[in-house]
């Protein structure tokens, strides 16, 4: 059994989100092959944990995907692939997978599963992931505190082209830092990234 936390998004209480985190994963290649084969048992968003900065950074695309799914406006095949797609700043699906999805060498990953039907429960997800993911399950915490733990600030900054803005550095950014309070670079980055994801493709 893997440690799975259930998140309930405000305004969509009827669709809980199951989230699990694994480190020291050794079979990313296998998991990825199952996605490529579109094995329906592997209906997850597997995300490279180094690309997630904060819990909200993950919950935002999850919300968008769920919302677009329920209003039948998905740009990709499933709400789970849509999560990967929504994470990326532009509209290239393949690129989204390369940047945010798992690769054969990924060792830390986040698995997301939307409970769109009653049979998908925390228990069913915990059991299945525990069976198929070879690695160490990490409890993400009640508020998902651990979700950003492996986030690579430099990588994320690069993907979203944050340059010296939206964070601690830069001439104009200097004042911006104060917004988040103190020197919280991640929080400041997160607030820009959420916006970038929200306006993308429109």
């Amino acid at each position: 059994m893997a440690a799975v936390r259930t998140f309930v998004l405000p305004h969509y209480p009827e669709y809980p989100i199951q989230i699990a985190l694994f480190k020291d994963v050794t079979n990313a290649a296998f998991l990825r092959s199952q996605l490529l084969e579109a094995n329906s048992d592997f209906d997850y968003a597997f995300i490279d944990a180094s690309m997630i900065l904060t819990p909200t950074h993950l919950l935002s695309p999850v919300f968008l995907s769920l919302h677009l799914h329920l209003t039948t406006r998905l740009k990709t095949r499933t709400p789970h692939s849509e999560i990967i797609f929504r994470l990326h700043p532009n509209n290239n699906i393949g690129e989204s997978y390369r940047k945010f999805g798992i690769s054969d060498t990924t060792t830390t990953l986040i698995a997301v599963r939307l409970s769109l039907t009653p049979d998908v429960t925390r228990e069913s997800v915990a059991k299945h992931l525990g069976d198929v993911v070879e690695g160490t399950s990490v409890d993400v915490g009640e508020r998902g505190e651990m979700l950003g733990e492996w986030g690579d600030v430099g990588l994320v900054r690069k993907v979203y082209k944050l340059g010296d803005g939206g964070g601690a550095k830069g001439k104009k950014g200097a004042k911006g830092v104060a917004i988040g309070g103190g020197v919280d670079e991640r929080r400041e980055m997160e607030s820009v990234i959420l916006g970038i994801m929200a306006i993308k493709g429109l």
Partner: protein
Amino acid sequence: MATATDTPATPPPQHTIHILPAPFTHSPLTLLAQGAEALVYRTVFLTPHTPCVLKYRPPKPYRHPILDKRLTKARLLAEARVLVKCRKDGVTVPAVLGLDAENGWMVLEWVEGGSVRGVLDGWVAGGGRFEGVEAGNGVWGLMRRIGRAVGRVHDIGVCHGDLTTSNLMVRTGASAVRGESEGPQTQTQMQRPKRLTPSALREAAMTSDAPPVFELPPEEPPPPPSKAQSTSDLEGDIVLIDFGLATQTVQDEDRAVDLYVLERAFAATHPGAEALFQEVLRSYGESYKGGRSVLRKLEDVRLRGRKRSMLG
């Protein structure tokens, strides 16, 4: 009757009750304001402990539905783009948390604090007088921060389009207290000295009787306000809000009109504050490279008014 530059008294939310689009249709939301264009609600987003503002542009029944959809989408998107640009360039505006332009809504970061209008009114109510304010008074600092905030927005190539003292907020420290974000933040975030200003308390009092929105992990109760921690209302970052009329432009003319609108709003809303407003302009002029030439342009704009004279 208001004068031409009066900031509107927000009409009480007594107008048509709008049905909100998904996913907010059945959520209990608190209506904060209703303008000509948008309804503004307070709610939470992504997590039950992330307060936010929902801005909804309802369909206009008088407009052809195709045209209405096109306009609503374009405007929301333009507003969101400007906000994201501001945040990217380090300008203090509410972050965009979510957007569904097709359906007319946008979710913005909650900014804890009060409007400059309210702060100045409160200052006057507390015995402050605009004429002959002594040098050390905090109100001068507030003016300087306003000038700098507007200068920063202009510097990155954005004109607000509707600068009034209601669209400038003074952010109080309370947002950090409320646990605006979640998770790691609450653990790793530097615990800033918490400033619960009187306006933050008023805000809290205003919103605390709202119905409980979601039952989820309880928030840590905000620490009790302590006299020692509280500072003047006049302090705090200036946050510009409501970019519904904003444009991306670097023209001195547009910037000068922006300042002119603010000047008129100041004059209409805070009679007697002309001398104080000069401090806003002075600090604006120093805030970025193009500032001084905009101030020169402002003199032209003042002479002719916002509008040019035109053929009847």
